[in-house]
């Protein structure tokens, strides 16, 4: 029976209201705002409840489905046609050179990953400086240009060439000048290229100018000896070294080469022969060299000249006016020093860091009096590393201002950043019709240029260098150009109408000129990396003493001008130098060897002087130079800094260096001034306390050793009486008891010996270790939180000397009233690979354990990050991955992209977050060395395996090897009487022996 009962759902249905009728036709009770959602309003449209639920359902479903997908598999595709010379997993080495130093470039599967010194090279043949080590990162820098640019827009090379040639032809036709502004070029092929270019455009001329100039030395040598060159210094021949504000071990001329020479008279081998040079440093700011001096006397920049006048007077018995009359300490030291120098006549050297022609002329006279020429100073095989002429650049600015210059090229030159008067440069550039920069990035100058023709990185280039007389090194590419760049020389050749490949050009140049008369072929050069034509005999020189009175007067005038106010000394930091590599995160995070500051420059002020100015830790100070340039900088309390002075590093404050380097610190170049034709890096300033505070990112914040025997030192006199003075092994005097079983180590036992007398603290080992072991850069904030990842650090301790006593306890130092007399020691510190490692027993999961070869291993994959090992490490060398540094946008200094990650060493895994890491003694290199010996069916030889740190050390301060081989270098070094082990008394049995620091001080 059909029912005709009708149920209605509501009164609306029953009454059939018009609203109900119209609604019942639609599927949905409310209109669905599909249109709204799909149009540009997008997600900001009103979402009804039902839609919310739908969206939720869909979202959940979609996420579930998406999560079901397998993680994408990145396949490593093997070579289809394998290049003959590449075997995956086996590195290839190519000889090349970096800034004139012959190096070997280690490449893996076609990408350069590390530089090492060429052991066969002439001069610096072991170790490189930090900037050389870090330079591989520059190759993979994401901030570089990907191709040429014209008026800010991308352009093809052909179009750019047309523009350039048009501009050049127009300038040439109008008889206007063409200038190539470059930092020093000592490459014969580049110079030949420039010559070709000037042949084609006769109005073209090369102007060499260096950001940090040595033209004072060049001009002084021109004046004294008629030779406009920088001499080649031979610190290895010097028994007495007096440096007046020259940071010759760090940034002055050729720091690493000087280090190698200098240390040869001071390291353990030299000491065993009973020889040690004496080094006296007079300086205002605390330089790397000053920290290594046997005697360091703080003087103001204004006292440099008068001090040298006084020294000259004592040495020659002369009577020049303007000798030092202030600073009693310096005067006392001076008399002793002069006696020393006279006794060591012929084996002494005086160097001055000033760029003042007068000071350098006087220094020349002193060195002549000391018979240094031909022995410690070589003018006949001069250095060509710095040829820049400050006057020439000033002349160029004048020319440009007159409107004579129509075209200018900037090659490896960035005057809008590093010329003191950047405003003047900008004004001059405005009058030049066509400006082109060869910079690899849109730097300060390139971004103001009409065109940018990005140059290759040196690792992509052909080239050469002539760092000093008779010595030529080759630059060969180790990778195809990564971006659409072109070598500057190639560009110049093309614009000069030459179609030759630059490779052919270099080769022809070598074969026709450099290799002419040599038995070596081009191929030989590519293998050995250099050609040395032999040194000219170094001869002695004389100087005209009659003109020195005028020189002394100039010095006195300059000195008076400086002495009238707070004196500012500009210097280059060891890491960043002139600031060209400012975008290199490895260098930014390399702690300054003295202040241990990363990622900033600062105003270094003596603590007592700061106190008198009302400045304290974390203060900010505004420095106003005499030319009105003003910057606000954080204050660094620098013991040893001369009172009344402030030191500021140049090379910071880049605004267009790239992601990592932009706005790090403040630009100090504008403080410099042009005086008598050379740039002077000393000036005067007013200091005013600025509002606010600023915490510098220091890797070390406690600066004294607190009387602990972690550092052991002695004097050369005491050493001669007893070589083991203050050294000695704890176990020689104490009986120790062991809870642990003694394990045999029948194969190898890897150990290190570190010579505290050789280590200058420069830090190139730190960068080498970072690059070799893929150690992440963590950035300023993380360093402030004391979380830098460096496996190897260099501890620097101050001792304050007062009244013949040395104070190392913070509490005592607080009461001292003089903080100028400081002695410093540098101690490289890394995992000590203890035989009874405290870290090993406490790890709950055995992620760290001992090997049968005496190494303390770290199994990253097993570590789950309790950090107990790091807590229990007495040396505090373990480093924890607080974050996932490789893939976290907060740490995007450089590595969070696939391209820059090509710099990683494929032999070492990058560590995930939450995992402990530490020095492995380059286990990958040990394994590779053992494997190689095995393949060649021979015993491993001493020296087969070199660690990243030891091979980067030009002082040979880190000696690595097998303690089971009694004839290995390390075994011999460890048999040295000076050896001690840090914290040996807690019986952890460290594997790294240190040698006492010996100072060749005056006996009181």
């Amino acid at each position, binding site marked *: 029976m059909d029912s005709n009962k009708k149920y209605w759902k509501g009164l609306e249905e029953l009454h059939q209201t018009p609203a109900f009728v119209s609604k019942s036709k639609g599927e949905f009770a409310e209109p669905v705002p599909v249109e709204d959602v799909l149009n540009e309003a997008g997600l900001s449209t009103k979402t009804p409840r039902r839609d919310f639920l739908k969206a939720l359902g869909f979202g959940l479903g979609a996420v579930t489905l998406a999560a079901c997908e397998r993680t994408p598999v990145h396949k490593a595709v093997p070579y289809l046609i394998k290049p003959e010379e590449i075997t995956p997993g086996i590195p290839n080495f190519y000889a090349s050179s970096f800034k004139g130093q012959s190096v070997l470039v280690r490449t893996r599967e076609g990408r350069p990953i590390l530089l090492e010194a060429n052991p066969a090279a002439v001069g610096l043949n072991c170790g490189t400086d930090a900037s050389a080590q870090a330079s591989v990162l520059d190759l993979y820098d994401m901030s570089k240009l990907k191709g040429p640019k014209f008026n800010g827009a991308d352009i093809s090379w052909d179009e750019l060439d047309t523009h350039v040639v048009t501009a050049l032809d127009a300038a040439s036709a109008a008889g206007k000048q063409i200038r190539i502004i470059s930092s020093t070029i000592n490459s014969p092929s580049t110079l030949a290229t420039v010559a070709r270019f000037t042949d084609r455009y006769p109005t073209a001329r090369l102007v060499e100018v260096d950001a940090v100039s040595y033209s004072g030395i060049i001009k002084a040598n021109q004046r004294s000896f008629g030779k406009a060159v920088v001499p080649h210094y031979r610190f290895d021949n010097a028994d007495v070294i007096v440096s007046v504000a020259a940071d010759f071990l760090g940034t002055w001329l050729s720091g690493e080469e000087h280090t190698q020479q200098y240390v040869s008279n001071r390291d353990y081998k030299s000491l065993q022969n009973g020889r040690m040079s004496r080094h006296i440093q007079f300086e205002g700011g605390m330089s790397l060299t000053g920290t290594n001096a046997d005697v360091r006397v703080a003087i103001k920049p204004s006292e440099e000249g008068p001090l040298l006048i006084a020294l000259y007077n004592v040495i020659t018995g002369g009577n020049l006016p303007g000798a030092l009359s202030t600073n009693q300490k310096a005067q006392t030291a001076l008399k002793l020093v002069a006696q020393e120098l006279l006794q060591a006549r012929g084996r002494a050297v005086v160097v001055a860091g000033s760029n003042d022609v007068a000071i350098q002329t006087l220094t020349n006279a002193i060195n002549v009096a000391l018979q240094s020429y031909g022995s410690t100073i070589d003018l006949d095989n001069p250095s060509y590393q710095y040829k820049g002429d400050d006057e020439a650049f000033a002349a160029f600015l004048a020319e440009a201002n007159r409107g004579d210059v129509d075209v200018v090229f900037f090659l490896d030159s960035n005057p809008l950043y590093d010329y003191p008067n950047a405003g003047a440069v900008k004004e001059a550039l405005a009058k030049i019709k066509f400006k082109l920069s060869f910079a690899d990035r849109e730097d300060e100058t390139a971004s103001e240029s009409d065109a940018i023709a990005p140059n290759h990185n040196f690792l992509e280039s052909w080239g050469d260098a002539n760092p000093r007389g008779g010595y030529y090194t080759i630059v060969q590419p180790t990778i195809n150009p990564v971006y659409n760049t072109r070598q500057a020389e190639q560009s110049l050749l093309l614009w000069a109408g030459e179609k030759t490949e630059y490779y052919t050009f270099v080769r022809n140049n070598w074969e026709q000129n450099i290799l002419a008369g040599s038995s070596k072929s081009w191929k030989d050069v590519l293998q050995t990396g250099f050609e040395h034509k032999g040194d000219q005999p170094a001869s002695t020189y004389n100087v005209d003493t009659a003109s020195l009175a005028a020189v002394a007067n100039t010095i006195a005038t300059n000195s008076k001008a400086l002495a009238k106010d707070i004196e500012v000394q500009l210097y280059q930091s060891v890491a960043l130098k002139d600031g060209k590599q400012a975008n290199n995160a490895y260098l930014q995070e390399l702690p300054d060897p003295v202040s241990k500051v990363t990622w900033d420059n600062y105003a270094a002020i003596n603590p007592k002087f700061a106190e008198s100015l009302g400045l304290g830790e974390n203060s900010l100070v505004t420095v106003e130079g005499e030319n009105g340039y003003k910057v606000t900088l954080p204050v660094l309390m620098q013991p040893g800094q001369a009172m009344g002075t402030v030191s500021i590093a140049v090379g910071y404050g880049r605004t267009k260096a790239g992601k990592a380097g932009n706005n790090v610190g403040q630009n100090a170049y504008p403080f410099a001034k042009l005086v008598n034709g050379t740039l002077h890096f000393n000036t005067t300033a007013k200091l005013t306390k600025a509002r606010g505070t600023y915490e510098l990112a220091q890797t*070390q*914040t*406690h600066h*004294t*050793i*607190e*009387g*602990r025997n*972690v550092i052991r030192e002695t004097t050369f006199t005491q050493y001669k009486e007893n070589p083991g003075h203050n050294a000695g092994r704890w176990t020689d005097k104490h009986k120790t008891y062991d809870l642990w079983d003694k394990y045999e180590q029948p194969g190898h036992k890897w150990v290190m010996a570190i010579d505290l007398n050789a280590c200058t603290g420069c830090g190139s080992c730190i960068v080498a270790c970072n690059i070799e072991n893929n150690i992440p850069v963590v950035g300023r904030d*993380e360093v402030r*939180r*004391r*979380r*830098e990842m460096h496996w190897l*650090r260099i*501890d*620097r*301790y101050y001792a304050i000397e007062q009244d013949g006593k040395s104070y190392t306890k913070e509490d005592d130092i607080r009461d001292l009233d003089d903080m100028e007399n400081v002695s410093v020691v540098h*101690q490289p*510190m890394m995992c000590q690979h203890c035989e009874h490692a*405290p870290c090993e*027993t*406490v*790890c*709950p*999961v*055995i992620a760290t354990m001992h090997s049968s070869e005496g190494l303390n291993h770290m199994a990253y994959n*097993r*570590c*789950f*990050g*309790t*950090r*107990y090992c*790091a*807590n*229990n490490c*007495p*040396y*505090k060398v*373990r*480093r*924890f*991955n*607080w*974050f*996932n540094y490789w893939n*976290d946008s907060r740490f995007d200094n450089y590595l969070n992209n696939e391209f820059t990650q090509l710099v990683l060493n494929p032999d070492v895994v990058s560590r*995930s*977050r*939450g*995992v*402990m890491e530490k020095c492995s003694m380059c286990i990958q290199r040990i394994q590779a060395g053992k494997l190689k010996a095995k393949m060649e069916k021979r015993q491993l030889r001493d020296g087969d395996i070199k660690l990243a740190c030891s091979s980067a050390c030009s002082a040979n301060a880190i000696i690595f090897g097998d303690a089971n081989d009694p004839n290995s270098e390390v075994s011999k070094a460890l048999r040295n009487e000076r050896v001690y082990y*840090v*914290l040996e008394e*807690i019986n*952890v049995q460290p594997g790294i022996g240190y040698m006492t620091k010996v100072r060749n001080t005056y006996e009181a």
Partner: protein
Amino acid sequence: MSSHNESILREPLVTGKDITYAKVTDDILLPVENKPNKAWWIGFIMAALGALLWVVSVGYTFWTGIGAWGLNKTVGWAWDITDFVWWVGIGHAGTLISAVLLLFRQNWRNSINRSAEAMTIFAVICAATYVVAHMGRPWLAYWIFPLPNQFGSLWVNFNSPLVWDAFAISTYFTVSLVFWYCGLLPDIASVRDRAAGLKRRIYSILSFGWNGSVKTWQRFEIVSLILAGISTPLVLSVHTIVSMDFATSVIPGWHTTIFPPYFVAGAIFSGFAMVQTLLLVMRKVLNFENYITMFHIESMNKIIMVTGSIVGIAYLTELFIAWYSGSEYEMYAFANRIAGPYAWAYWAMMTCNVISPQLFWFKKIRTSIPISWVLSIVVNIGMWFERFVIIVTSLHRDYIPSSWAMFYPTWTDVGVFVGSIGVFFTLFLLFLRFLPGIAIAEVKLLLKSASLQQKTKLVKEGHLDPEQVAFFRDSLSKYDSVSEEDIKELETK
């Protein structure tokens, strides 16, 4: 715990008039059987917000890495392990009260053991969260256990105190939980018997079929004793092992043989303080004054005073040994505690832990509820600082001065700690809502022997030495749950 006539000299453990077995059940189950009051809701919402903060802080830490905390290359443990040890220490009172006092027949424990044990369990849960949370890769936390290799894990290092720790904590937690739950069975059965519907079914399952027969009671007694026997060594072992995390290291300030007893005393000290903090509020809010009496409060204060003195002596011994050792690192570590950059923490610890419990020598202070409550919190602040001092000031300046560093907490550090307190109180308040906060069955045992009612009856019977009665009467004056009239009633004889 049989009902015999107790000496009149002993102070009553249950006060109040007309207390019957039924009234005990009614009183104690009041919060369980009724809707929660406003005070509970306020407390619960605050605690739950704290727990939410914990979820956010720990979640953030898991998401970004341990770098979210203020730790650095020198100080690898700070608030995380400070909080961990603090919670483990607090967790000690529960076992001590339930096991040791049971074995020693201290029947005053009957009215406080339930809450103390619950507190223990929640404190250990809080502590355990840090074990996982402080790991760099917490998803691998199970590696701490010696699982067979087939499981994908490898064997553990039995030399490492952290492995001992994992065993100590997990054993302690398991035993405490079982002990607590066994004790709960008769009470859950009581709730079951009075409930209806779904609630009855749930409590029925939870009561494990308790039927109240003599046999059941007998077994219950035996299990309690056995578990007490098992737990007693744990009271000593857990914190001994926790102390070995530090004592077996080489770090000056950690490498100390006095640590095991010193840590155990400190743990009992902080545990009783926490019980005091909780019970003083609980007895007021839930009207348990008749069951948790002034006698309980005073007894716990005495224990706090004794253990506080032990801790104080340990501090002084440490200082003496540091000087006597002649080791410069050891001496510096302690000089640095006293006068270094974290001296404020050291002196906060000294004041809170050594000086403040000495106030309990005064009976007025010992029997004052507000002062006891404040001091119980002061003690736990002090105990937190003790762990902070041991961990951070020892690490931040150890052997090599170049690595000396300061530790500054981040918001995440604070969030995890404050949040863990929220978690603790959330759990505790839920416990009070769903389970009887006092062991009903055990309190009932006291009615016929140790209650004021019973003693009044004895006095009235009049066979007692009047001097002893007078003594008893005097002792009642401190009770806030005994009125003047009640005391007078004792005089009428």
